[in-house]
């Protein structure tokens, strides 16, 4: 087995330099916006993620060592294997990410990354602290190891995937050359992913290659006539890292405690984010449906501005 470096540790100085560069560029051009408390919260979440990776990452590592014995093939360390592993890992990433947006149990972990209303390079580092506890690594991390890719290779390409995703968290880079936008995940595609505009909700789950979204029907291009509004459907009123880390878990516990049947327990826990028994909350599906009906009504001649209307 070759001695593999940790791509994320190597990249950290680069991350810091690029954040400094984006801050200065943003100040000069207005094309990137940072707010100190938001920046601090995102960076602290990133540091906590690194620490938790060391503390809790052992759980996942032990799992991979355990399932390695069930590997179907012995793929080994050839260069082509690295390349294939990278592409397949990105495919798995797409599905893991898609489920992270559609199952509240996993959303409670991933929501942290989406919880800033800013979209700059510091947002890339706003990451959860408790990921291994969601057992996502069992459901999504096992496939490549069971096929026969060495666990260390899977971990290595997975880290490369995350390093790639750093630079796309910016408003400073406009749409790129067509062929790049066609194949790769870019700042433009990922801005859409972080936006809460109903048109953009739950779109562009890609890690490195946008082709998965095009293949599986979740692609949405960024439009000039619809600027992205970043954040989550119910934006946070706090910069407290502990609350950022725990808020959706607290929500799940509160909801499950109020559940009146097993169906409600499962819905609150494993249903889509925003699920409620009577549909009174805003899930992505409900928001998209409301948006579609509003557009149809507008196309039918109605003109609804955001102005306050006289009380009934």
């Amino acid at each position: 087995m070759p001695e593999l470096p940790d791509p994320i540790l190597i990249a950290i100085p680069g991350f810091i330099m690029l954040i400094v560069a984006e801050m200065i560029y943003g100040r000069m051009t207005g094309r990137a916006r940072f707010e100190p408390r938001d920046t601090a919260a995102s960076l602290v979440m990133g540091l906590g993620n690194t620490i938790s990776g060391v503390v809790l990452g052992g759980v996942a590592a032990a799992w991979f060592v355990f399932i390695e014995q069930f590997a179907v093939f012995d793929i080994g360390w050839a260069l082509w294997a690295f390349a294939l592993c990278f592409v397949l890992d990105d495919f798995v990433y797409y599905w893991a990410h898609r489920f992270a947006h559609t199952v509240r149990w996993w959303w409670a972990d991933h929501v942290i990354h989406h919880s800033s209303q800013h979209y700059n390079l510091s947002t890339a580092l706003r990451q959860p602290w408790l990921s291994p506890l969601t057992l996502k690594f069992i459901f999504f991390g096992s496939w490549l190891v069971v096929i026969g890719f060495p666990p260390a290779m899977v971990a290595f390409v997975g880290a490369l995937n995350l390093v790639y995703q750093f630079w796309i968290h910016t408003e400073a880079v406009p749409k790129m050359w067509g062929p790049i936008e066609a194949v790769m995940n870019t700042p433009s595609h990922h801005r859409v992913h972080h936006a809460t505009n109903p048109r953009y909700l739950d779109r562009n789950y890609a890690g490195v290659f946008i082709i998965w979204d095009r293949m599986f029907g979740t692609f949405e291009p960024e439009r000039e006539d619809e600027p992205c509004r970043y954040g989550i459907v119910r934006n946070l009123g706090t910069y407290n890292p502990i609350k950022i880390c725990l808020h959706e878990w607290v929500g799940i516990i509160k909801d499950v405690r109020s559940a009146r049947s097993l169906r409600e327990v499962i819905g609150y826990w494993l249903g889509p984010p925003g699920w409620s028994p009577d549909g009174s909350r805003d899930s992505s599906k409900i928001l998209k449906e409301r948006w579609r009906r509003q557009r149809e009504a507008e196309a039918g001649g109605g003109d609804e501005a955001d102005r306050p209307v006289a009380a009934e």
Partner: protein
Amino acid sequence: MIILVVGASALAIGLLVILNILIGGWTPARLRNEDEAAAALADGVFGFRAAAPVALAADGRGALAREAGGERLGLVVCLGDRAAVRALRPGDVRSIERDGVRLTLRLNDYTLPAAALRFSDAETAQHWAAEAEAYAGAADAAKGGAVHA
């Protein structure tokens, strides 16, 4: 090794935040008028249409409005250069305090536990304290969680 990485990262975070403070480039969010408050509500809660009158805090850092044709109470709280928006339903308000022109709503909301709005006159604060009453939790109201004027 990990101690070194954590220590260096913590230092880098501190320096980046200081750079962000020194370099500036953001302005605190402020709602300049009722239309902007209504737009913030519509952006923050898709489909929320504010009914007039919209109550705008004197400093433009918050607003309240009833929903047109709906039962919810819209709340905007500015936070840094952005805003957190809520459409409150009955039971979402834990307690209401009014002190002259100042109205404080404590909410059953983990990430937005309180909203303090300072209006230009005591009458407006009193009016919205009474409006918010309908959103106070029944249990809390019984324990004395209602208006303290």
